[in-house]
């Protein structure tokens, strides 16, 4: 298995990016920050970066049919069609049953590797997909003045002179950069990759030297511009993205080449996405954050089948990923954080579906998580406009992940201190 350190990365690409006399601002903050000599010495502990895999369930996951209060009569009264029967759920205790499609994930729970955080949310819940997603990504509920994300701020704060940021610190699988990875300077952290095989810059020259020179020109024109325009934040953003794309492509290609999976991943989009994360980690890509989206949870009509399928996909993908990472000796470094922008209305609608709701469960999966349940089951007799009230602020969960897993003072990222939760073993 090939392992590519930051040092290798910089050795191959830095001379090109550094050739400029005027170092653009954005480069001086990233790979350019450290003096060149630092990069020739070994950097202890580089292989041990802990990894956070964020799994976003887009559309609003029905938390009440994920963790089912199967002894609560109110549940069946409000969910005459969609309510899951006691005999069908996986009973974890005398109150809570887990959706049967999560049986594979539940094996990990039995192993102590899954924590469920119940009724996570925030005050004055917003029922717009877009606004609520924005709140989860920015970790700010007030006015929409803050547009940068909690993971972008985390990476900003965790990079330092001896451990500077690289373009692949965060890898988003898919086609869109999540707002969570936006940074306060108007930029963003990390790269976006849909298909590693297509993630390569192909020159059009007829000879090796021609191709080399094209590549050099590509970076030079990204650095200097073609038209003599004065840089603006937007121009900087485009230039930086172009440079990061060129630089990261080689590294990604090398990591992908070094990967052999002995594990069969399920054949759907989410399975493929987890496989890619596995590929990057096992291939030695030095990333701290991976971001995956699992869409389709906006179940306004005919929810039962769709919801079961989505949970099933999630469950089997996580399980395959874990097996793969165990084989590669990487599982110890990994925690998965799962969330959705909101839960769904407690009462089902007339279309055998559910409308937008409020609080819902989050979950953590990994060898270092404490396991079990955090918080109480929802009180269905005390609803807020028909929705479940939140009892745990989602930022408490972020805070615990930051403090206990990513070893960073969470207040630097969240702006204030939220009640801490014990979510990890240590």
């Amino acid at each position, binding site marked *: 298995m090939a392992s590519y350190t930051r040092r290798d990365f910089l050795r191959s690409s830095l001379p090109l990016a550094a050739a400029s006399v005027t170092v653009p601002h954005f480069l001086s903050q990233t790979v350019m920050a450290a003096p060149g000599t630092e990069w020739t010495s070994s950097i202890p502990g580089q292989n041990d970066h802990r990894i956070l895999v964020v799994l976003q369930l887009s559309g609003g996951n029905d938390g009440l049919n994920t963790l089912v209060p199967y002894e609560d009569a109110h549940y069946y009264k409000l969910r005459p069609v969609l309510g899951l029967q006691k005999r069908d759920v996986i009973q974890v205790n005398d109150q809570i049953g887990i959706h049967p499609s999560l049986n594979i994930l539940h094996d990990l729970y039995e192993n102590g590797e899954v924590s469920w955080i119940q009724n996570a949310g925030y005050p004055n819940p917003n029922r717009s997909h877009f606004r609520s997603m924005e709140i989860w990504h920015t970790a700010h509920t007030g006015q929409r003045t803050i547009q940068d994300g909690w993971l972008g701020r985390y990476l900003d704060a965790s990079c330092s002179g001896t451990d500077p940021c690289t*373009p692949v610190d965060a890898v988003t699988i898919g086609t869109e950069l999540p707002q969570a990875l936006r940074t306060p300077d108007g930029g963003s952290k990390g790269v976006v*990759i849909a298909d590693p095989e*297509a993630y390569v810059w192909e020159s059009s*020259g007829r*000879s090796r030297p021609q191709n080399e020179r094209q590549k050099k020109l590509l970076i030079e*024109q*990204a650095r200097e511009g073609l038209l003599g325009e004065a840089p603006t934040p937007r121009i900087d953003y485009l230039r930086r993205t172009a440079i990061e794309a060129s630089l990261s492509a080689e590294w990604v290609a090398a990591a992908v080449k070094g990967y052999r999976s002995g594990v069969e991943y399920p054949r759907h989009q989410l399975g493929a996405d987890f496989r890619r994360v596995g590929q990057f980690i096992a291939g030695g890509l030095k990333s701290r954050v991976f971001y995956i989206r699992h869409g389709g949870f906006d179940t306004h009509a005919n929810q039962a089948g769709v919801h079961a399928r989505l949970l099933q996909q999630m469950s089997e993908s996580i399980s395959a990923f874990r097996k793969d990472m165990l084989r590669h000796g990487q599982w110890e470094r990994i925690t998965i954080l799962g969330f959705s922008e909101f839960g769904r209305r407690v009462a089902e*609608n*007339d279309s055998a*579906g559910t409308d937008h709701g409020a609080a819902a469960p989050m979950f953590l999966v990994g060898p270092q998580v404490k396991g079990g349940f955090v918080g109480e089951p929802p009180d269905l007799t005390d609803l807020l406009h028909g929705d479940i009230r939140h009892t745990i602020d989602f930022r408490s969960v972020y805070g615990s992940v930051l403090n206990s897993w990513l070893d960073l003072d969470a207040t630097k990222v969240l702006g204030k201190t939220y009640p801490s939760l014990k979510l990890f073993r240590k």
Partner: protein
Amino acid sequence: MTPLSVRQCDFKHTGYAASEPALDLFTPFPYTTGTMSSYSDRKTLARYRPEVHGPWHGQHAYHLLERAGFGGTPEEVRMLSEHGMDASVDFLLRAPTDEALSKPDWAETWREIRYQSTSGLSDEEKRERRNTRIGHMRDLQRDWIQRLISSPQPFLEKLTLFFHSHFAVSAEKVKDPLMFLEHLDLFRQMGMGDFRELTKAVCRNPAMVIFLDSASNVKGRPNENFARELMELYTLGEGVQYTERDVQEAARALTGWRVRQYQAEFDLSRHDPGIKHVLGKSGPLRMNDVVDAIFTRPEAARFIAVKLFEFFVYQHPEKDLQDELAIRFAEVNFHVREYLKLLFTSELFYSKQAYRTLIKSPVQLVISTYRKLAFDPNPPLNATRAALRLMGQNLLWPPDVDGWKEGDVWVNTNALMMRYHWLHFLTTGEVPEGLTRAVREASAETYLDVAPFRVPGKPQDVNGSLQLAALHLFGRPLEENAATRLARYLTHGSNNARVVFDLTKSTSEERFRGILYLMMSSPDYQRF
């Protein structure tokens, strides 16, 4: 003066008959005067006045054609600049012609087929019917791409694209291609007019009724989906001036709509006739009453006025300016064309704040490239379709109910790679590996002609050719150092020895394609 025309279905390189001295085209572009300046710190929609702000010249025309359309050849730009601002704006924003609304051949045959019952059909025939339907959805996508590239009314298509994203409906859920075509035609027919009327028409458009589950919104058990998006995404903006209660009450007022036989119909027996209270209006409200109630709110003018401004002028307009935009939009009675005329003739539109500050969407990138280069009359439509999807803008399949977001989000490392692959294919005719899985239609005949970049009589003029390329792609010349770098690639062999550049020779042509590929891959080409 040459009569105004933009791509009258004539794809030939209008400006570059070999006998013409192409470099003379530089003359009508006084870009030596520098970039457009910020005329005032006061952000208002004051009219652009040549006597104060300077002559409205080629660069202004270039900017207008990029924004109100998808750019064009230097010759098209020159024509606009000769006619001046008002004539150009009137010309680009002219009302749709019959041709712009003509239906493709497949539409009529499919209209007949879709009403035929499937009950007597064998499984094989049912499958065939389904494949025909899916095939026509692809036809619709291809037709639109062709129209975007070649329509003499590019503004109409651009506005249609704006509304396709604003009132986003996806073929994922609306599977009938003719219904989808009629949905888009609604924007072509009504998009330039009163936005309030368009909103009402969209509400009862079968594609929208299906897309937002209106059929399941019935008396007694309202489904809030449509009511919420109507306020949040189409008219007022998230959480602005409406409450959850307004959404719930509006949902009741919107009950009773469904689609039967491909038409939207109102079924009184499924409608909730009770008294509702929506945004301060009370009574046995129905759909039109809800829309009327929404448009009595000042925010309704602001939301769409600002969104149009951000799409056509620049993002994040200042607070004071937003106020003015809302007032102006209300003054012209929500008339989209009148409002956009105000924008396109304002000093602000021609200021530094607007000039080259937007990020190209994939459609803008691809379509404007075809138009600037007066590309082949038969562009590779399947490849274009696939490439747009990979870049993140699969026409007819917007990502969600909020459509495509504009701005920085268009560009990330993955999207950029896909842009590179597409440009590689376009400039060389070769399909790069990164694209092979999506694009199988590739032929050497479809690739770019380098003839427009040959300086007539002087095929060895490296700098002339480079500046001609810049004129096409940016409407302004290359900075000196950049030109020197690129010229070096064209004039030096692999051992760094000087080679003769001659754009009539295939080796130079090949290298020049490489340079076009690079120029279009630059961060500078991703803005407009």
